[in-house]
């Protein structure tokens, strides 16, 4: 398959309290090396996965922001963040560890509708 399937990872969980965020990001990294159209939408508490200033070593954990930063190297460049989720947390794109496209709810609805499959965390 050259064009592959359109697969969106919907990530809504904050990192560290559970390993859901880490394991979900690991799945995205693996998906990136397959020849598929992979995208990621960070939404709700999931936006904390990509906030800057994280230091997982304080918890003897991997720094989730660093894991997320590897996404483009694995070919995952379609990275989206819910604008309202950022605003509710007093965050803006400059607070994030990698370049993302901010989407409003209507754009997220279109993004979801365009997928062959959605995998969540």
């Amino acid at each position, binding site marked *: 398959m050259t064009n592959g399937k359109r697969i*969106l990872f*919907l990530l*809504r969980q904050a990192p560290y309290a559970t390993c859901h965020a880490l394991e979900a990001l690991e799945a995205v990294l693996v998906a990136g090396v397959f020849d598929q159209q992979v995208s990621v939408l960070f*939404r*709700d508490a999931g936006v904390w996965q990509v906030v800057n200033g994280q230091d997982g070593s304080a918890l003897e954990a991997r720094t989730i922001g660093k894991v997320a930063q590897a996404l483009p190297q694995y070919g995952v460049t379609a990275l989206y963040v819910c604008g*309202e989720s950022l605003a509710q947390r007093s965050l803006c794109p400059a607070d994030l560890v990698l370049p993302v496209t901010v989407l409003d*709810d209507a754009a*997220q*609805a279109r993004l*979801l*509708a365009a*997928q*062959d*499959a*959605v995998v*969540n965390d």
Partner: protein
Amino acid sequence: MPTLHLVSRAPALAACLEVAGADDAILLLEDGVYAGVAAGHAADDGADAPPRSLFALEPDVRARGLGDRLGAGITIVSDAGFVGLVERHQPIVTWR
């Protein structure tokens, strides 16, 4: 093809409704069925919000004693009905 949203915890319905399209279907399951209590119009969040089809999974509804407590706008479906919804929608998005 419209999307099927699976809501497995009640508070997650709000996030789902923010991005669900007018033709999408929403299936409440597990603890998501509590979002359907006396809220048959939970899917109509505001006068200009598009109507969506709202379903609840029968075993979860019955187990929790919610049979007569769900809003009138909610259709109760069996596991077979769940499969039917999956057949008619793509993608399937889970909200927990």
